[in-house]
């Protein structure tokens, strides 16, 4: 197959492109900059640019759509433009171009309202209940992608939960950098149970969804390692791999949630340079459990994670041990 991978500049997009390439498909990548992946054809542009999108999908059999605006903060319009309208443009263009498979990479947050998640399956995306602009826009995007599912155009939504790995700037580096400055507290003793996804597993699940699209189209699947851990243990493992001190102090979860809400409100009026240090959403994510029933995902996609949590941590340790120190900053 000729496969278009959007958003291949990120850690997950890059890994997906390589995985699909290795399994024998021809890969074209689509992102604003260069993908710098050997063996793929680069198409550059933004999903908000209809012309660039039309050019990118030309001649492809399948699309894996990862490109998105990912942030804890930001204005609704920005999220909508990229995540909702960008997806709409891409879906329409892909169908017109004759592609017959479309894997929508989504997020478990599209279906949940900030309460703890204990062994749930993949529920329907719900923009009205999803928390935060990112989750709301992704929920709307997943719904419109699945709406396009039909004869000759198989759409599958894959929702990897907390993807991490060497070189991850979203989670790992934020954690490590804060821990290094001893500004990383645990919330509520770090007792919340959270499942995560090592990047290679997320990529192989997405590739599996591409393979199985004809059989499982129209459905959504949450993907994780299936190895939940307490936040305390996860953070300690990550910090241990990076050689920085593990968090040693704890803030009551309720305090953090309150502080997060306050900072969020202030930030929306006086935005800081980067992202707010703590949002209510983030506080909730770090103080309530998030783990999923993986039975259906594994059976439907005929997929198993190949890198265990411990093996993933080991790879992270190697990466930190060999990576040039300046890459950390």
């Amino acid at each position, binding site marked *: 197959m000729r496969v278009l991978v959007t958003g291949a500049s990120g850690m997950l997009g890059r890994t997906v492109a390589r995985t699909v390439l290795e399994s024998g498909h021809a890969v074209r990548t689509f992102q604003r900059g260069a993908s710098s992946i050997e063996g793929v054809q680069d198409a550059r542009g933004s999903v908000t640019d209809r012309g660039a999108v039309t050019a990118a999908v030309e001649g492809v059999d399948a699309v894996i759509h990862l490109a998105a605006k990912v942030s804890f903060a930001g204005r609704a319009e920005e999220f909508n433009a990229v995540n909702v309208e960008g997806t709409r443009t891409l879906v329409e263009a892909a169908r017109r171009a004759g592609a017959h498979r479309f894997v929508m990479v989504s997020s478990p947050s599209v279906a949940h309202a900030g309460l703890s998640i204990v062994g749930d399956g993949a529920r329907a995306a719900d923009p009205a209940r999803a928390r935060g602009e990112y989750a709301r826009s992704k929920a709307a995007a997943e719904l419109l992608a699945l709406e396009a599912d039909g004869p000759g155009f198989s759409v599958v939504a894959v929702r990897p939960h907390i993807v991490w790995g060497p070189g991850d700037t979203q989670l790992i580096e934020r954690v490590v950098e804060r821990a290094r400055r001893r500004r990383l507290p645990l919330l509520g003793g770090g007792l919340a149970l959270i499942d995560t996804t090592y990047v290679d597993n997320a990529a192989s699940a997405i590739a599996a969804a591409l393979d199985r699209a004809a059989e499982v189209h129209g459905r959504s699947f949450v993907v994780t390692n299936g190895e939940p851990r307490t936040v305390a243990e996860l953070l300690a493992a990550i910090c241990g791999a990076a050689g920085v001190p593990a968090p040693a102090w704890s803030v009551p*979860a309720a305090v953090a949630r309150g502080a997060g809400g306050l900072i969020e409100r202030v930030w929306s009026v006086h935005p800081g340079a980067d992202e707010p240090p703590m949002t209510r959403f983030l506080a909730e994510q770090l103080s309530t459990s998030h783990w999923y029933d993986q039975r259906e995902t594994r059976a439907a996609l005929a997929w198993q994670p190949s890198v265990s949590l411990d093996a993933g941590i080991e790879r992270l340790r190697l990466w930190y041990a060999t990576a040039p120190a300046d890459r950390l900053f």
Partner: protein
Amino acid sequence: MSPKPTLEPASLPHSHGPSGEFPGLDERWSRLVTAPDSAGVSRTWHLLDNLGLLEEAGRTPTGTILAVHGNPTWSYLWRSVLAAATDAALSGEAEHPVWRVIAVDQLDMGFSERTGVDRSLPERVADLGALTDALSVGGPVVTLGHDWGGVVSLGWAVDHPELLAGVMLLNTAVHQPENAPLPAALRLVLQRSLLAASTVRTTAFLDTTLAIAHPALAPDVRRAFRAPYRSTARRAGIGAFVADIPVDASHRSFAELRRVSSAVARLTVPALMLWGPRDTVFSDRYLGDLLRRLPHADVTRFEKAGHLVGEDVPVAPMMLAWLADNFTVPGKATAAALTEVPDSPAPHTAEPAFRPLWATLDERFDDSSAAVVEMAPRGAPRRSGIRTVSWRLLARRVDDVAAGLAASGVKRGHRVSLLVPPGADLTAVLYACLRLGAVVVVADAGLGLAGLGRAVRGARPDHIIGIGTALAAARTLGWPGQKISTTTLPSPVAAALGVTRSLPQLVRLGAATAAPLRGPDLARSPASTVGVGAGEEEAEASAEGPAEAIADTVAAILFTSGSTGPAKGVVYTHRQLSALVEVLRARYDIGPGTGLVAGFAPFALLGPALGATSVTPAMNVTSPKTLTAHAFAQAAQAVDATVAFASPAALRNVLATPDALTTAERTALGRVTTLLSAGAPLPAPLLQRVQALVPSASIHTPYGMTEGLLMTDITLEQILEAEAEAEAEAAGESGAPPAPVGVCVGTPVDGVELRLSALDELGVASGPLSTEPGVTGEIVVSAAHLKDHYDQLWLTDREATRGTPSAAARPRTAAPPRTAQRWHRTGDVGRFDSRGRLWVEGRLPHVITTATGILTPVGPEQSTERLPGVRRAAFVGVGPRGTQQVVAVVEPTEPTEPTRRRTRRPVTVAAPELAAEVRRVSGVDVVAVLVVAELPTDIRHNSKIDRSALAVWAAAVLAGGRRQRP
């Protein structure tokens, strides 16, 4: 007086408001039906009826449930029954009977017509009959009633024998026992001045009734119950109903109530009673009365439920299950065909001949050697020394007490609750009751006062024999029955406690009247009972002797420990207890001349039946861990004991106090040849230390439960051998069945059959009964000395015999066929090893169901507890069944300095090193290792961790809940 009733026509509930106003009520069930009433006047009823929906779906009812609400509710009470019956019928499973449900609003109640006519019981019964005639209700009909509606439904039942197929009752009554006052709550309402005010003019009665649900009714449900009673005029029926309670013979409904209650006693159709004992009006007393009338009824008491049992407990599915059990569709495969049991490796030995428990007492009535020895006799002056009771004295006391009890009104079949600590007094009373054919009710003080009270009240004893403190509790807490004290109390005290007699008084009374019982009487020498010139039939009946006649009647109700939910009453017949004695005798060679140290109550009581000389050590019997090495050895010395029973907690304490032993005491312990310990597992190293104290003894740790006291047996040597083999197997080649884990309890004793019912991926024991090794399943047992059934726990009985031949042959009468082999699901989980030994892996509710399969916690816990720094560990599952994650909770040994700060917290995440170690040694992908200062354990054994509660706690903590102690 009640206000003048205003007339109002019947109406449909949903015409009064939006459909959301009646949660759970389907508008399509509601209909108005006009029929003549008892006086021939045309009246309109509102009723719920699922016939329309059944016909729409093309299903023809195979029977009708006729449901009658009480006061002050309406047919809304039965919404879950309508829903469940309709769903079951429409689910399309052809083998299920299709039940039409008709739930009426009685006239002047609910949304039925307000007639303005004062209706009492005779009219109500006739009104209902006229309605079912108008509806052309055909058979079979199962009636269903609650509260005063129970009486009306039973009135209909006895008037329609040609249609009646069964009766179902929720908290109701058909008889006010003589000499018993009306319940106080009712007396209050019945005060003339209060009646109208509480029931009609205000909503006080209505509100009070609706307020007593456990847990409280949801506000919208409460609103729905109140909906038809919003005005004074609409409440007239409530007042009339309360006024219709016949307080005495002069009441206009008295005769009808008596007619119904007498006729009920002649009903032979299946009966089901679901009861909420937390009812201030329809208390257990009325359940007892109903059970005397319908002794074949299936009963379940829900300890936490009250008057509105139908709201407190999901009764509808239970009713449907009961109906399915009792009313099969013709042509349906019989249950027996589905539950064939594979051939036993050790064929079931012939059932032992019945020997009454008191037979030894009779044989040794002239023997002056010791039967019972008390090291610290109760009631005797301190340091007064050992009390020895000879066989002769014991036999005479048993006779005297039996005669005295008989003279005090204790009859065959009466329940006698014994609140007496183990010792000679208890032994005498116990055997006296057995001999009389009275049912002894034995609950352990270890249940605590609340648990003991629940057990005693629930068992509804006719008599209570107890020590002073027990009788004081009985008085304070209102336990039922005639009260008899063990010692003669000063008369003001006796009066205050409601005590009518004492044991010494009984003995005197009995000695004066016991002549007929004394000497070689009928029970003693069966051969003499074949009367000369007796008819052939009579001769045949008596050939077995009168003792044989009571063999299959109930002898005892023993309560479980209650460590897993409310204590359950376990019912044994004389034959079953006799079989237990035989098994003990055969297994441990206990007989005349055996000195028996009885440190474990259930076996202690059987000493006289075994012919052994039993000795009770000086200890607080309600707390086994008070047994010291000294007391243990002294007891052994007193009777030259060769056999000793001690609970695990007692043995632990014996080991902790060995230094005080004298040479003579050590010598006495050296004579013990058999030491038994049962109740909770003991690790082999601990048993090896016990062995040092009793060097000549073979140490046994049998496996059993209140429902079957001796199922398997194993010795210390065999344990060590089994563990060594298991270790070798675990280290051996892969592909072999998984190495056993848990506690090896050996092989079944003679006469016991063991099976496993394999667990499915959801931890449900759904597999057929099997002896296959290496498969984890629920342990299912069968033996002649197994329990008969649970007391008033039909649902529990049903689950305990599910999928066994016993389920198919479930007794419908009080005396099941003697040959029927009984089976029991233990609720324990285990595995057979390749040599047929049973390994117990824990309790069924504690099985963890992960996405990759089931996990029993005991094995990983044992591995984890071997880690340095870990005192105890518990493995529990969090999350939905079938995809649970495993959490280890560990209790450290003495907190070391760095961890002391951590353990000040109610719970912490273990250090990464410890977590890694737990995962490594347990072989389980544990998602979290939590550290707590102390794992909560039960008081009774001080060893059983309540993993179910711990799982709930762990789930809450890991979901981001409050950080609190487990």
